[in-house]
């Protein structure tokens, strides 16, 4: 890119950055939507400020949105931007270290005055200091150009300034040969009742487009051709939205009502927001007084026959531990979604991390096994939410689904599924003519008990948190029964291994090195492994979506490689779990604990180090 630009690009990473109030999230999603419609593969990642709304013009207040578009398959929002749009000095300060030399930077010079760069924490004027000398810099007075464009429309100053993001978007649209109609449609819709604002925005958008075409700075426009994607109907989907939709689909598939008991928490709240909109599908979103009421109301709903879920992030999962144990003891179907964020404690609430794995596995008193699964990308959230619901209902057990801030807020094209085409779900319920049904009678294969819900005459029974008799479910203090029940609950979860897909290896199927990951790091790891392949260093990649139980062939897969490298965004939790479960192997580990996803380059570097 930049000075050595070419007409057709394979993939490109663009980062829009500005002040929280500058509308960068909108700009980013517009560029994403337009590119998706053109058939590119895409991946996005918004990068919110951690602060409420930090003082304008400061680095803490910078909001960014990174989008990666490609004509080949892409799996991450990209390590480093090819184009950075910096709406003010702080946005430049916050992002410049990420942009490789030689790349393009668009700056709004109106916000690079002395007070601006001082506020941003620069010692000297960054446009003068030589900081940008190795970059292809496009200096455009975006704010004043917008102002000029919208003059005389009768708009107030604030509304005019607010349109500058559309000016910037217009510029980038031109650079990458994108049409404007998607965004025009969007604006029409958004400002349906505000004709003037709509017009102003479109005007700014076109002005930016035209400006980019006019000025010399952009010597040529690029394009990214459609990717070679599986045929079908697509839409762009965010991880949290996909999670919500997966549950809605499972509910429709089973004819059950969906009950969500939840308490808002970053970065999980959007699942609650999404499900709140869909009462007409029988979805009940209950915003509880806290996380404990969130999960216990869901347990009550599960007992009464709903598809019951609860959604949260790390601190909330900690609060739910005791009640999750109750669901284990009462053997009720329940899905707990933990959208992981940086910990411990309140930690880095807006940043991503994979550090709740141990908590998901062990964060309860007593021997308290649950199924643990994880989603590997925004669109995969749909599949894993659906699967989690299926496993819970069919195996009559709680399931923890781990996603993280990165996949939850990221977006990806999703090949739209039809409910009809989804795998069937058969909730494990007593048939009406089952003789002598007992509450803790089990299926011989899955060990699932047969559910009966209140309202069914003749099946009145009681459950609870005290140890239960292995058949009647009555309270039992019998020592042998307790041992049997502890083992049965564990075995029930282990038997799920017979019902889940085997572990697949991408890349080399055997050999020197197997790269192992789980959950949201899939994109970075698979990209890295593919790069290594290109560079003639074939390694395998095994990515876990099923953590407890592990896929049945895990040991077999591991045994095909000389070395195993477990990569995680934590201090080594999955690797510790693997050492406990499959102690016969030696594991190398690579960990990053910075609240940020892996960069592809970090992984390839690590792989090279090991293969040397």
């Amino acid at each position, binding site marked *: 890119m930049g000075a050595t630009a070419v007409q057709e690009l394979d993939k490109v990473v663009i980062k829009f950055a500005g002040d929280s109030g500058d509308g960068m999230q909108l700009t980013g999603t517009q560029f994403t939507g337009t590119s998706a419609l053109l058939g590119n593969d895409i991946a996005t990642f918004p990068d919110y400020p951690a602060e409420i709304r930090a003082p304008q013009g400061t680095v803490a207040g910078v909001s960014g949105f990174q989008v990666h578009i490609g004509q080949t398959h892409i799996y991450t929002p990209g390590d480093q931007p090819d184009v950075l749009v910096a709406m003010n000095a702080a946005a430049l300060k916050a992002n410049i270290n990420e942009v490789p030399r030689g790349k393009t930077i668009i700056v709004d010079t109106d916000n690079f005055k002395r007070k601006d760069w001082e506020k941003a924490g620069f010692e000297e004027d960054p446009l003068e200091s030589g900081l940008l000398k190795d970059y292809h810099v496009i200096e455009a007075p975006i704010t004043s150009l917008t102002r000029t464009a919208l003059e005389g429309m009768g708009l107030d100053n604030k509304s005019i300034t607010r349109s500058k993001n559309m000016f910037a978007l217009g510029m980038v649209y031109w650079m990458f040969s994108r049409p404007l109609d998607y965004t025009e449609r969007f604006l029409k819709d958004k400002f349906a009742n505000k004709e003037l604002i709509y017009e102003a925005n479109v005007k700014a958008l076109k002005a930016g487009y035209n400006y980019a075409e006019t000025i010399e700075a952009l010597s040529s426009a690029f394009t990214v051709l459609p990717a070679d994607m599986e045929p079908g109907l697509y*839409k*762009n989907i965010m991880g949290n939205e996909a999670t919500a939709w997966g549950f*809605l689909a499972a509910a429709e598939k089973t004819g059950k009502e969906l009950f969500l008991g939840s308490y808002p928490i970053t970065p999980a709240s959007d699942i609650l927001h999404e499900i709140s909109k*869909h*009462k007409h599908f029988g979805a009940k979103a209950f915003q509880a007084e806290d996380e404990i009421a969130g999960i216990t109301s869901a347990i009550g709903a599960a007992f009464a026959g709903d598809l019951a879920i609860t959604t949260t992030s790390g601190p909330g999962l900690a609060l739910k531990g005791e009640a999750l144990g109750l669901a284990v003891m009462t053997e009720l179907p329940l899905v707990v979604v933990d959208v992981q964020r940086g910990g411990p404690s309140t930690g880095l609430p807006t940043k991503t991390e994979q550090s709740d794995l141990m908590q998901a596995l062990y964060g309860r008193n007593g021997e308290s096994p649950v199924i643990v699964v994880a989603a590997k990308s925004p669109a995969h959230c749909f599949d894993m939410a659906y699967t989690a619901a299926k496993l819970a209902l069919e195996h009559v057990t709680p399931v923890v689904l781990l996603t993280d801030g990165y996949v939850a807020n990221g977006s990806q094209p999703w090949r739209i599924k039809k*409910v009809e085409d989804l795998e069937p779900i058969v909730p494990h319920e007593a048939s009406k003519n089952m003789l002598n049904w007992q509450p803790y009678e089990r299926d011989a294969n899955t060990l699932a008990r047969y559910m009966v819900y209140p309202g069914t005459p003749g099946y009145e029974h009681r459950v609870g948190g005290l140890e239960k008799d292995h058949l009647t479910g009555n309270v039992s203090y019998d020592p042998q029964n307790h041992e049997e029940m502890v083992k049965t609950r564990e075995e029930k979860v282990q038997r799920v291994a017979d019902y889940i897909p085997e572990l697949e290896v991408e890349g080399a199927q055997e050999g020197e090195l197997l790269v192992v990951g789980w959950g949201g790091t899939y994109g970075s790891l698979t990209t890295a492994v593919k790069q290594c392949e290109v560079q003639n260093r074939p390694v395998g990649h095994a990515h876990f979506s099923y953590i407890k139980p592990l896929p049945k062939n895990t040991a077999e897969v591991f045994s095909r490689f000389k070395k195993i490298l477990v990569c995680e965004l934590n201090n080594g939790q999955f690797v510790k779990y693997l050492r406990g479960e499959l102690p016969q192997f030696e594991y190398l580990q690579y960990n990053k604990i910075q609240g940020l996803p892996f960069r592809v380059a970090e992984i390839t570097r690590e792989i090279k180090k090991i293969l040397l």
Partner: protein
Amino acid sequence: MATTETQEYTYKDFASDQEVRWCPGCGDYAILKAVQRAMPEIGVKKENIVFVSGIGCSSRFPYYMNTYGFHGIHGRAPALATGVKLANPELSVWEITGDGDALAIGGNHFIHAIRRNVDLNILLFNNKIYGLTKGQFSPTTDLGFKTKSSPQGTIDNPFNPGELVIGASGNFFARVTDTNPKLMQQIFIESAKHKGTSVVEIMQNCVIFNDKVFAPYTAKENRADHILEVRHGEPMRFGANNEKGLVLKGFKLEVATIGENGVTEDDILVHDAHEPDSTLHMMLAKLHDPIVNGVIRDVPAETFELRMQRQVEEIERTSKFKSVNDLFTSGETWEIKPH
């Protein structure tokens, strides 16, 4: 398995096969019996009744009821019960809880259930002690009372459950002693009838750790003079010869004796349980001597589940989505054609 018509039920239909395991003499027995006797009269089939509880002696209750039941975890019964009710609003949901369960660890869920007005019938067994854990003070233990965890006497001001319920904008509050089976039964039926959260405080004797704490009210010789049984629409009178009654003096309730100081029958306040303004109900709930029994407040109000249902209907009417398939294909989509 055959079902019975509700009118054919007797109290025996509500006894489960589990052996009842409270201490001999515990007040819980009488409450259990009163509940079992009330059940045939609420007009709900057995299979549509669910008893939910937390943890405590009292919370063992669901095991003894031959209905659906859930013995939950400590303090969380209101949330459990809310989940049950929202999942299936047809069910008659009863919550059994103790003073520790409801007001210590569970205080927040308790006041939030009341605020939302989910149709739950909450029976609060107030023995002013933690029974199951063998005798620590609870949030209702009298100030200065010595227990295992307050060897010098407690220094916490106790909650008055009725005050808290009304302070959380509750619409149904009643109080009764475990020594009054008839009134218990009546009140349980009233609470079942009330749509929305109803709270019944039962002054329950724990023979082991807090024996006779309610004796100043319940002992034979004290009852008439220290318990005032209120009935909607009737003057609030009490006393061995029904000679005493409540009158209002400025902002305060006072006890007056008919015939003394010129007080006549007509001066005695008439109880209005249905008055929306809770000021007088609050005063009644706070009264110490006499202590008020009966239904103190019973005001109709929309339930949470009804409002939820209404939203479902509204959105069903207005939404263009009939299946999630419609949702999935809504908004901007694009087609990738086979190559």
